[in-house]
């Protein structure tokens, strides 16, 4: 798994590639919480278009990001879900809880 950040105006976009599982979900969590809580970025966007698989610990990290951003009054957005990532959020009944878009254009315009 690789994660890197881009800044566009007041938005931070995290580009993630590879699978998100127990081996690396703590890293995702840390990056998200730092951005939301410490940097207080008003809009955080996760580009998941190169993520094939997300396990339950990965979902938990995303939920932590979402909760932190709600606490901070900022926004937390996902885009580019693979079939597997979409399924896992559906199974967790979280697909409608997250703000999810198809691509970066929509996520930035939102």
């Amino acid at each position, binding site marked *: 798994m690789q994660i890197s950040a881009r800044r566009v105006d007041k938005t931070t976009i995290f580009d993630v590639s590879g*699978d998100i*599982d*127990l*081996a690396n979900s703590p890293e995702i969590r840390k990056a998200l919480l730092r951005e939301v809580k410490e940097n207080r970025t008003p809009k955080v966007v996760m580009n998941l278009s190169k993520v094939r*698989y997300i*396990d*339950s*610990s990965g*979902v*938990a*990290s995303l*939920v*932590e990001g*979402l*909760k932190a951003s709600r606490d901070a009054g900022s926004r937390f957005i996902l885009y580019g879900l693979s*079939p*597997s990532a979409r*399924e*896992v959020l559906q*199974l*967790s*009944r*979280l697909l409608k*809880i997250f703000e999810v878009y198809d691509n970066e254009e929509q996520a930035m315009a939102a």
Partner: protein
Amino acid sequence: MSQDLLLKLELHSNPNLLCVVRGAMERLTEVFGFSAPDCRSVTRAVDEALTNIMRHSYGGRLDRPIGMLCRRVQKRPAAARGHGLEILLRDRGPAVDPAKLRGRLLDEIKPGGLGLHFICQSMDTVEFKRMRGMNQLRLVKYLQPPKQNCNS
């Protein structure tokens, strides 16, 4: 080895190896004849079960043994296309309290407590037992899935 054994695997309780098992399961389920969504969901169930062993049975230790056995099984009474993929996962951690082995309700938005849900939603049979000093989780998915059966 019996004819119906498809694959036997041993690994350490190291999360870095989870993707290796997924790589094998993605192909094994495909070869077995599952639909693409079923391939993904069986792979997910195995991945989550291994994650639970690493976290709960072994408390995050990286060097403990995990065994995995994949076999073809026949549904009884034998039906047309009635065979399934059975996956046995074994670990040498302390005995699991079956009362703790339950997923939480999903109506609250909070991290954690999802793994068992994914496993039960994916598989036709989910059975846990303690035997010979080992925990064994038995997962079965049939080619033409009957109704969900996840109270075991």
